[in-house]
């Protein structure tokens, strides 16, 4: 393994991200903050929601922000770079096995997802004001869930980015991302679906459910949530699956 090449590729991505920092932040942070404000402040202060909703909302918002950031950070550049201009070609020729370029993409996506999580948590908390009621009793488990969510987001981005063409980006959002968010237990806990047993079972196919419920379970354990150990196990499996699928797709796309 050629670490110097790997580090240079990371440096390139970091350089590009730094250049686009303002756009990147707006792109990933604005929407979740608007959600936090409308759901967590407007609806609560008008009495349409109870105060306890704040604690329920914040882990969900953190999960969705991390997941969308990771997917976006890996998939969007990949879709562009594999298109007509083949911008990625020069990096595929770097003296390193091409799989490592995919690993670099995953690592970089993870870092962005983690940064997004680290920014959205305090900002969201600030917007929500008093009474969020978060208590992290098992910080290591919490960090483990965060880590697995970051891997899920960037490996998912790799798999998606290598499977979707430029003309299908709109479709990717309406067919994959939007349903994933709305059925991802982001704005409500999984137990809220008790009255919709079929949907409740079906949403278990959506990995974002485990991200939201995992963070909820480690941040607001007093609210009903899926078992955190189960969540960790499933996230591990999803991560492994997406990494393998993503690397496969990447290889397939890179070499004709």
């Amino acid at each position, binding site marked *: 393994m050629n670490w110097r*090449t790997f580090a*240079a590729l990371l440096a*390139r991505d970091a350089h*590009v991200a730094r250049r686009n920092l303002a756009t990147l932040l707006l792109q990933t942070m604005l929407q979740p903050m608007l959600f936090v404000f409308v759901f967590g402040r407007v609806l609560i202060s008008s009495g349409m929601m109870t105060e306890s909703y704040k604690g329920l909302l914040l882990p969900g918002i953190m999960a969705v922000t991390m997941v969308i950031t990771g997917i976006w950070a890996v998939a969007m550049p990949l879709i562009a770079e594999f298109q*007509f201009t*083949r911008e990625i070609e020069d990096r595929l020729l770097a*003296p390193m096995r091409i799989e490592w370029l995919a690993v670099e993409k995953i690592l970089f996506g993870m870092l962005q997802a983690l940064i997004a999580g680290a920014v959205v948590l305090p900002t969201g908390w600030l917007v929500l004001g008093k009474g969020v009621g978060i208590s992290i009793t098992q910080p290591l488990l919490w960090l483990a869930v965060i880590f697995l969510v970051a891997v899920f987001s960037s490996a998912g981005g790799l798999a998606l980015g290598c499977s979707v063409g430029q003309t299908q980006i709109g479709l990717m959002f309406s067919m994959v991302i939007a349903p994933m968010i709305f059925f991802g237990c982001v704005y409500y806990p999984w137990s809220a679906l008790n009255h919709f047993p079929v949907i409740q079972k079906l949403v278990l196919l959506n990995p974002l459910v485990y991200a939201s419920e995992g963070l909820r379970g480690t941040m607001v354990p007093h609210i009903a949530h899926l078992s955190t150990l189960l969540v960790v196990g499933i996230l591990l499996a999803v991560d492994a699956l997406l990494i393998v699928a993503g690397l496969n797709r990447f290889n397939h*796309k890179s070499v004709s």
Partner: protein
Amino acid sequence: MGVGVRMEGLRKVYTSPPPLAAGGGSFAPARGPGLGKKKDAKPKKSFQVVALDGVSLEIQAGEIFGLLGPNGAGKSTTMGILTTRVRPTEGHAWVGDYNVWQQQVQAKRLIGVVQQRPNLDFALTAREILSFHAAYYGVAPSERVRRSKELLERFQLTDRAHEMVRGYSGGMMQRLAIARAMMHDPQVLFLDEPSTGLDPQTRLLLWEIIREYNRSGKTVMLSTHNMDEADALCHRIAIIDHGHVIALGTPNELKRSIPGGYLLRLKFSHNSPGVVDRLRQLHGVTEVQTLGDGVDLYADRGGSLIREIVAVLADYAIDLHDVHISEPSLENLFLHHTGRSLRQ
């Protein structure tokens, strides 16, 4: 010590439309059997393009070697295989001592590649493109600065080196792509149709740079459909068509190998049996090929034959509608072997 390139029995069959790694997919897809309406026909097999069919070549260290052929001949696929971007269906290729498929990383260290289509990193400026490229190869930061400065100067890009390349013209992109391939000082430089999109002046500059690079003992392999380029630049040339090498040698050897050297392409009002034999008997004529209402006539002289040809045709009451005389060239060689022009 220079590094050579070798390939043995390379064959490539695309079963799906070739992605751009193959150089732009300029294939005429010959759809194979299997597109039938039968339910058991496997739709997967419906697309099949044989891009290369048993190509074996050896490029010596320190040589400028040219692959000459029309679009879709298999040049880019050959380049793609040698540069790890296309997986061969059969056969092997080596860069130096390294098998390109089994020892990819070592092979990649030795090569610099310019693709047919400029594939610059649009997220970076020209200077950053050169600098990051060298960083991928582990070139030290101070050396990166020095080399990028030198190459930007050499390729006349210094003035706009700080700009994002999105706004570059096609020719500038091509120049930068070539500069980038030289940044890590590779032992073998692969250039896939390098002068596409360059104006004549820049083309001459590029030729000079390639020769200079080669003088330092480096191997250069380039593909082109431009005969002048192949003739002017290459020590040896392989002419390739439909995935086969149809001729191989130095430009002079190849030109000498054309029977007669001169080609007279004649168009008649109609063809008549016997006329071809009579033409063949004319002094200096080495070969006559019938081509619709006309012939391709190879001879060791050009214009002085016309009077005799007209006389022969008069005996058969055939009018001569058109004459095109070309001097010995690689174009004629290609015509001789394939019956088609390189530009077709």
